[in-house]
């Protein structure tokens, strides 16, 4: 088990290192000089040089890369070209919106998908199954940002249960914060729940065909008992993979959804940064997103081992 975890950890670190090189290299080839962009075309050569030094734009590429990575390791993401404030502070503020949103959506999606998938598998081919499958087929096809607009139209504009957009901030209490994230979370969660429910169902149906399910029935378990006691835990193995993958889609999705609800999250930060050519911010946000995805997949790998004893003992 320890060896397995360590192996995954090493591969996590390698992935992060390679990802950081890729991101750094892509940003490097961007045309234009941030300093002259910030000061305009009429800037004096010596002011430019001073600004470049301040922004850490001098020195070799390797040197700057190491500076960037070294800074990130101690929580220093550099200084924003446009706002002249520490990037780490800007990210931290926004993260308090984006991360709770993604987690909220992940929780919702799992809470909806598990019962729906198990229900459909248990009633394979019956009307209940067909209804769930039809709903998920539709759920997969709906773009989440469009769904978000419809939610706003119905629940904010017509019914006035929620605000159409904006975020009240956690300062007004957890409940108020969650309330203003509810519509965005639903918009994000439902399409993902549709996928997850289908995966859960088909994983369970695969398991139902396994020999050990027949063994369980021969012991006197009813269909339902066999499904719950022997099916669900085995089905978790493929389902966990999808949850891991979905996290990256939820993060990406939350960037888009933030646009619909005017939420002050990472998404808005990154789009503002792109239009202002504030590349240090873009670079750092992208690195953070990639870090989150890789870390979540590492946790999923550990969860596998918890579910599957074969992985625990193999290495």
């Amino acid at each position, binding site marked *: 088990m320890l060896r397995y975890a360590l192996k995954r950890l090493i591969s996590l670190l390698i992935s992060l290192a390679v990802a950081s090189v890729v991101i750094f290299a892509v940003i490097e080839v961007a045309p234009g000089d941030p300093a002259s962009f910030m000061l305009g075309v009429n800037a004096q050569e010596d002011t430019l040089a001073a600004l470049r030094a301040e922004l850490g734009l001098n020195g070799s590429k390797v040197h700057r890369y190491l500076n960037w990575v070294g800074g990130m390791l101690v929580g220093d993401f550099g200084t924003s070209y446009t706002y002249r404030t520490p990037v780490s502070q800007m990210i931290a503020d926004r993260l308090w919106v984006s991360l709770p949103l993604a987690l909220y959506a992940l929780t919702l999606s799992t809470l909806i998908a598990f019962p729906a998938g198990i229900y459909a598998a248990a009633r394979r081919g019956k009307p209940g199954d067909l209804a769930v499958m039809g709903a998920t087929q539709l759920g997969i096809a709906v773009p989440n940002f469009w769904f978000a607009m419809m939610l706003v139209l119905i629940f904010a504009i017509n019914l006035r249960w929620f605000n159409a957009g904006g975020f009240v901030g956690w300062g007004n209490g957890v409940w108020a914060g969650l309330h203003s994230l509810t519509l965005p979370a639903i918009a994000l969660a439902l399409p993902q729940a549709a996928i997850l429910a289908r995966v859960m169902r088909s994983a369970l149906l695969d398991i139902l065909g396994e020999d050990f399910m027949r063994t*369980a029935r021969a012991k006197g378990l009813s269909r339902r008992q066999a499904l719950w006691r022997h099916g669900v835990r085995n089905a978790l193995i493929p389902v966990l993979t999808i949850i891991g993958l979905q996290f990256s889609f939820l993060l990406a999705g939350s960037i888009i959804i933030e646009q619909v609800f005017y939420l002050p999250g990472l998404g808005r930060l990154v789009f503002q940064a792109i239009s202002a050519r504030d590349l240090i911010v873009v670079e750092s946000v992208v690195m953070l997103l990639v870090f989150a995805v890789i870390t979540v997949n590492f946790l999923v790998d550990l969860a596998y081992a918890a579910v599957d004893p074969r992985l625990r003992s193999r290495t």
Partner: protein
Amino acid sequence: MSLLRIKDLSLSIHGTSILKQIDLSIDHGQIVAVTGESGSGKSMTALAVMQLLPNGAEVDGTVQLEGEDLLIRSEAEMCALRGASIGMVFQEPMTALNPVKTIGDQVMETILIHKAMPLAQARARAEEVLTRVGLPADRFPLSRYPHELSGGQRQRVVIAMAIALRPKLLIADEPTTALDVTTQAQILDLLKGLVREYDMGLLMITHDLAVVADMADQITVMRHGEVVESGATSYLLHNMQHPYTRMLFEASGHQVTLPKPPQPQPLLEVSQVVREYRLPRKGLFDRPRHHRAVDGVSFTLNRGERLGLVGESGCGKSTLTRAILGLEEVQSGQIRLDAQPVFTGHKPNLAVRRKMQVVFQDPFGSFNPRHRVARLITEPFHLLDTPPTGSDRQDRIAEMLTAVGLSPDDSGKYIHEFSGGQRQRIAIARALIIRPELILFDEAVSALDVSVRAQILDLLAELCEAYDLTYLFISHDLSVVRTVTDRVLVMRSGQIVEQGETDKVFEAPQHPYTQTLIAAAPRLPEIEMISA
């Protein structure tokens, strides 16, 4: 009153008739074997008793357990019976257990699901039962997971689950088919012992007539969903009425006569071959461990000789086969065909490859489903510098198909249009088409029904006459190896423990392992075939 009484049992699945008016009965303490070839409906009979039939099944007739009809029971009542009054053991021990639960939990589940006793007692009973089936708790604690056990041990766990509540009836569906002969003998002994000890009835489903003859009190022979013949074992073995029963017994012990081998002249020379695999490390800082799949094997195969290679699973015979074929490089030692090495440098030697062909076990996996027969059997032409083309090629295809008992017209068909036996004929045609010096038969008849197997063995004998075949016949099935080989090698843990003329080795085995192996193999009784 019989323990189990099946009367006029008919079964159809989605309208297709599977069983037709089956009659069968079992008493307490009695072993009844149901036998037949694939598609005979023997497994469905077992599932019908359990009422675990696939969707769309319609049943008719009566199945009585101690006078109570099971077919009119509700599903909830059947759940109460399954595992408590009727236990069942399946064929595939590797997949019959839930991989994510411990063996203790799985055995205890049988007890707890029927609320037969409280938890602590159930645990004690699980330990007791596991000990009874040969898995004592000091060596096999309840906390073990299935993947930590061998196939035979897992089958013992399955048996423990089935007998934990001492059912009156135990159903065993091909319980030893997936196991090695020595393990098979142990499991059969265990089952026999349990029947005696618990006074259970045992319904044993098996295709292996030697097992049947050895174990059963009563035999029922089935074909195409019908009972062909049934009776007490000792009586039936000597008074077979139905021609199908006779054919089945004849085919099971089928003997062929091979032409005499020519003067010894070495063709394949294997010397001191070693093939190791790296195992995953146990601890974090341990050195990587190695498994010697083939450990210093040496032997010679003469031109025109038919050599057998027997051994149980994991003995290294598959690895050795792959090494001879040049599919895997060996770490040390030499394999030479006609004095040329199979591997030169790190590449397989093409000049040697074109002198060898192989026939595999699985008649369903051996062919690309998207190619026609003509293309399938001419694949080895790839080895030739100037493969035949045009009418020359057509003639070779026609000749080969005819030689293996098929028609030249079959060359345009796809593989799914053929039965298992026909596919094995096509596999032989593919192996023969470039007239190799040596053919390897890798469990080539193991997946076939006995009647088809007998036909393929006949074909092999014919081809030996016509083409002077030299082959290495790799099999776990001792009775087949005995009849189609001149000499035999016995392999165990990567080493050849005994070799010699086939008849001599079988009649007077020298090595203790060979002796165990031969003693463990169930034998067909000598049956005087009724001439009339």
